[in-house]
């Protein structure tokens, strides 16, 4: 393997135990140079533990971490070619912006004029020229964010770790920073490893995403893979919204299945790559936007799953508006409300029909029961 194709970061069988509990359980992944990799998972799933092990603040119980092919297990955090943007940024409040950014350079023993030049350069790159003399608390949330990234990038690390840095920002700014972070990553051309519990951050910014749950990676792939082809029930439920039913397989033709839910609905679904036999307990996930809404059943004739019911609730939220449709038995189905105007008159209690094609129903073997 030549140096250029060597991944920037490789974790191999990474494991961390705290006493009897396993925080990270045999996780392996590699991040190619210059890409944006996200670890997505609910809080407490072990993603922060992975990040702290890569940064060097925690020692793994087992496994190896390699940066550009070289194991860094014996390298202390202040010598690793990895820098981290902390959750609350951890800018040094006792220094001004230029000293904050120059801190790492001073530790490397660079001369004063060179530090000043590099600091100015990086301030230009993050679009905040001339703020070097300001104090940390004079900056806005978004500016602090960029300074925290600049403080790391000025050291030209092989890998930049970001620990939910957008968590403290308000919604509008967070949306803006998502785009900006992606642009900064492209501008610096550095490998970013980003951890978050917010699926939209991960989906928008990442080249590849790993979904993590209870110390393990459930699935690794592009945003599209995770969204359209979830491989586990956890991923199907965690990434994006989904209607979720439990039931029993009543018919199986290859990958196509027919499932009778506990509430009595008959649903079609598919289970690519997973074997489910007649009589097995199964879970079916259908995304609200994959379901068609219609006022008469004839419009849905081409769908193999059709349900009739009435409007139980309308959840208006602009472009993301939803309708909750209740069928005769009372089971509720969440459906995205098209904003093309044809359902503008929809109101509570009106009879409606919903339908979707079998490929949209992702089936998984039900856990436990």
């Amino acid at each position, binding site marked *: 393997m030549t140096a250029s194709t060597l991944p920037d970061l490789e974790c191999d069988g990474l494991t961390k135990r705290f006493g009897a509990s396993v925080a990270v359980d045999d996780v392996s992944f590699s991040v190619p140079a210059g890409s944006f990799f996200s670890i997505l998972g609910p809080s407490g799933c072990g993603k922060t533990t992975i990040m702290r092990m890569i940064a060097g603040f925690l020692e793994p119980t087992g496994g190896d971490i390699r940066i550009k092919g070289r194991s860094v297990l014996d390298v202390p955090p202040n010598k690793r070619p990895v820098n981290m943007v*902390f959750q609350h940024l951890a800018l040094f409040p006792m220094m001004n912006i230029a000293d904050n950014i120059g801190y790492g350079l001073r*530790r490397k023993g660079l001369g004063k004029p060179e530090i000043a030049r590099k600091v100015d350069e990086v301030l230009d790159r993050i679009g905040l020229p001339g703020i070097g003399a300001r104090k940390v608390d004079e900056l806005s949330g978004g500016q602090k964010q960029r300074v925290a990234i600049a403080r790391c990038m000025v050291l030209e690390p092989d890998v930049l770790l970001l620990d939910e840095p957008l968590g403290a920002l308000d919604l509008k700014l967070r949306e803006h920073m998502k785009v900006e972070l992606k642009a900064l990553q492209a501008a610096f051309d550095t490998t970013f490893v980003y951890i978050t519990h917010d699926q939209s951050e991960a989906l928008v910014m990442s080249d590849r995403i790993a979904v993590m749950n209870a110390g393990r990676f459930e699935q690794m792939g592009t945003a599209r893979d995770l969204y359209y082809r979830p491989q586990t029930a956890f991923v199907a439920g965690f990434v994006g919204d989904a209607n979720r039913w439990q039931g029993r397989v009543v018919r199986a033709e290859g990958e196509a299945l027919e499932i009778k839910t506990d509430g009595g609905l008959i649903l079609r679904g598919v289970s690519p790559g997973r074997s489910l036999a007649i009589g097995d307990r199964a879970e079916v996930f259908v995304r609200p936007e994959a379901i068609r809404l219609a006022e008469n059943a004839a419009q849905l004739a081409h769908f193999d799953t059709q349900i009739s019911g009435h409007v139980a609730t309308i959840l208006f939220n602009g472009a993301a508006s939803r309708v909750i449709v209740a069928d005769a038995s009372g089971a509720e189905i969440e459906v995205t409300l098209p904003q093309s105007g044809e359902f503008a008159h929809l109101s509570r209690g009106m009879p409606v029909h919903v339908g979707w094609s079998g490929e949209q129903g992702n089936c998984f073997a039900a856990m436990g029961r």
Partner: protein
Amino acid sequence: MLCRDGTVTRMRAGQKLGLILLLTPLLLWLSLLIIIPHIDLFLLSLRERVGVRQYETGLGNYTTILTEPLYMVTFARTAMMSILATALTLLIAFPVSYYIAKMVRGRARSVLFLMCLIPFWVSELVRTFGWMILLRESGVISGLLQWAGLAAGPVELLYNDASIMVGLVYTSMLFMVVPLVTTLDSLDDAVIEAGYDLGGSGPSILREIVIPHAMPGIVSGSIVVFMLSLGNYLTPTMLGGKDSLWFTQMIYSQFIVRFNWELGAAFGFMLLILSSLIVWAVLRLTGQTLEKTMG
């Protein structure tokens, strides 16, 4: 409208009364115990005794102090020893506070903090006697040294400057640890980690991040410890020897032994000026303000 204005006025009057009531103890304390005695002391210090029951107003008492070498030497010695005691207390208390604030968590932390506090449940007199029991000729340490064969006869460790220093540092510990723990506690762990992450080593993080952050605590702790040492009477008297004169002892002897209240009052004022000057100088040197360190 009229009615509402009336209510507002009444509310304002009520607030005013509340403020006066809240301030009363403070004002009483300040005026009765601080301001009035000091005015009286100041006037007293300006009285020169020219004969029996004959007094003149002048700076004679102050010129006596400035021209008498013993007074000035004691004055300077007290100041130097207090500064040294403050520095030693800071040196010992800083690692202790850092350990309590940053290294231990939960129960162990409150236990450690309590252990710093426990000695102060005993009166200062008893604590100082404790040191005497340890350090005297027939004391525990002397006995241990003889038993171990390190000393041929009884060793006297009391009655010198070192024993005063030990006593002063011990007495002042808590007053340094409390403000330091408070300020160090407010330093986010992530900031220290960020320092390491960006290539900092232990000493450089201490110098560039921890100490600048803890500066208000260091200064306020140092001011309190310095004042306490400067004005301490018990420790120098009990642990110090004949050569270890402390300025407070001289004030005491002028007032009580020599019955020379005029000179004693002048001594008192000299001490007040000295401590104010040194505190002001320290604040200027460290770039701190009184509001920042006490707030």
